[in-house]
């Protein structure tokens, strides 16, 4: 693809994500692929979630980690390209930052180029474990007046 979009958003329809202890865990719900990123990647993710402005993200990361902005922007763009290719982020119109915006992370370790860890085998691995039945699988269709 020729031009990476200037603003993006996380693909809220198909993605569940959480940042724990500065690391990001992302699940692509449609097929159960699990992704993870360390603290720099997680910072990028939270900025994309907040405002999605690719250039502003690069500047903010450079400031947080005190690294030359050109190098950071290259890294951010490379990561965004991967996230985009995996369908985890999508192009979006520019938007205002919701709430107070992302806060400078409390534990900022040394800078390292962010990497997206991909685990495509999770779906298969989990399929090896038979799914436990859920009560929702046993929905009772009845017309008695007992509460359910």
């Amino acid at each position: 693809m020729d031009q990476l979009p200037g603003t993006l958003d996380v693909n809220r329809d198909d993605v569940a994500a959480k940042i724990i202890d500065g690391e990001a865990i992302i699940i692509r719900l449609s097929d159960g692929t699990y992704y993870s990123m360390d603290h720099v990647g997680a910072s990028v993710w939270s900025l994309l979630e907040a405002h999605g402005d690719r250039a502003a993200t690069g500047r903010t990361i450079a400031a947080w980690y005190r690294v030359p902005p050109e190098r950071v922007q290259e890294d951010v763009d490379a990561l965004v390209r991967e996230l985009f290719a995996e369908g985890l982020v999508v192009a979006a119109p520019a938007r205002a930052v919701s709430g107070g915006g992302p806060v400078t992370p409390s534990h900022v370790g040394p800078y390292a180029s962010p990497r997206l860890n991909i685990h495509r085998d999770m779906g298969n691995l989990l399929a090896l474990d038979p799914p436990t039945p859920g009560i929702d699988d046993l929905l009772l269709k009845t017309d008695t007046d007992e509460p359910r």
Partner: protein
Amino acid sequence: MSPGEPAAGVSVVPSAAAPARADAMRRAFREATQAHPGALSVEEYVFAGRPVRLRIVGRRLAERTHRAFAHLRRDGAPAARPFYIDVWDESETGGQVLPQAAAMELDRRWVACDGTLTASPDGRYVSFRYEESVTLLDRQEQSMISCRRSGSHLSTGDCSKPYVLMLSIWYHDRGVQLLHAGLVAHERGGLLLPGASGTGKSTAALAAVTQGLDFLGDDFVGLERVDGGAFRGHSIFNTVCLTRPTLARFAEIRPHAVEDSFEVEDKPIVYVSELYPARIRDTVPIRAVVLLSKGHARTEITPARRADALRAFAASTLHTVVPRPGREALDRLAALVERVPAYWLRLGPRLEDIGPSLSAIAST
């Protein structure tokens, strides 16, 4: 065999056969009661406010099963429309249903709890079978029929929480959610102790009852949301299941623990209503959630965040109760932690601190 019943060994049956399965089991139960009237026992109970009639053919099986529910026994005139639980022991009655249990399978099938759970497409009939037993639940008629290979061949789970899987479905249908939690009660209300046994829950529950609180459960209890948004806890089983090292800490209880499961890994069971008949209750309003943490220098109470309480429930109940509770259950638990306060009880080495700490939490 009547027309419409498949030959032995055939396991996939069309959905119309589900009622035939239930009839076949009911017929086998009736035959067992008629052939062995002396081995039949009938007791009335109340489970979460609903009448239950437990009929068992087989002396040994009856003795062990009734003991697990003894605290919920009800005297007086039998109820008009109880939930029927009918059970027979094939080693005593000479029945042949269990060897054909595979033929009892319904359309939809899962592997769970070392056994096979099946259900009819409309969800009305659910069956569960494993090596030692097959059980069928008719949710519309509120009738459960079960047969066991042998009443002398009961595991710790069979003795301490009989029929928990099927009961969890029946309770769910009545708006009572099964939780992996302990529940003890003070006069100010009930204290829920989420987490499966081993987190200090069984120890805490047993310590509480020896120190004057009331007992409702150490492993599985029922949670019901009542009018007005308050929560009520229900006792399901009368038992506490302990590891031997834990039991050793309760000198006065040790001699009364029952150890006679056939399993290699059997654990001693304590029947609480037999030891503390005045301190066992069937239901209580929930006053607080108490999260347990072991291995501290001294026993200490601190407030817990709602997120911690919800996480404690989620980590155990939502993933280790079978069938897995659904979205509704998570919402109910979220409402529970909004409604009642949560505390950490950090357990130190002294058992005698537990009762007073729990009372202190209840009195806050």
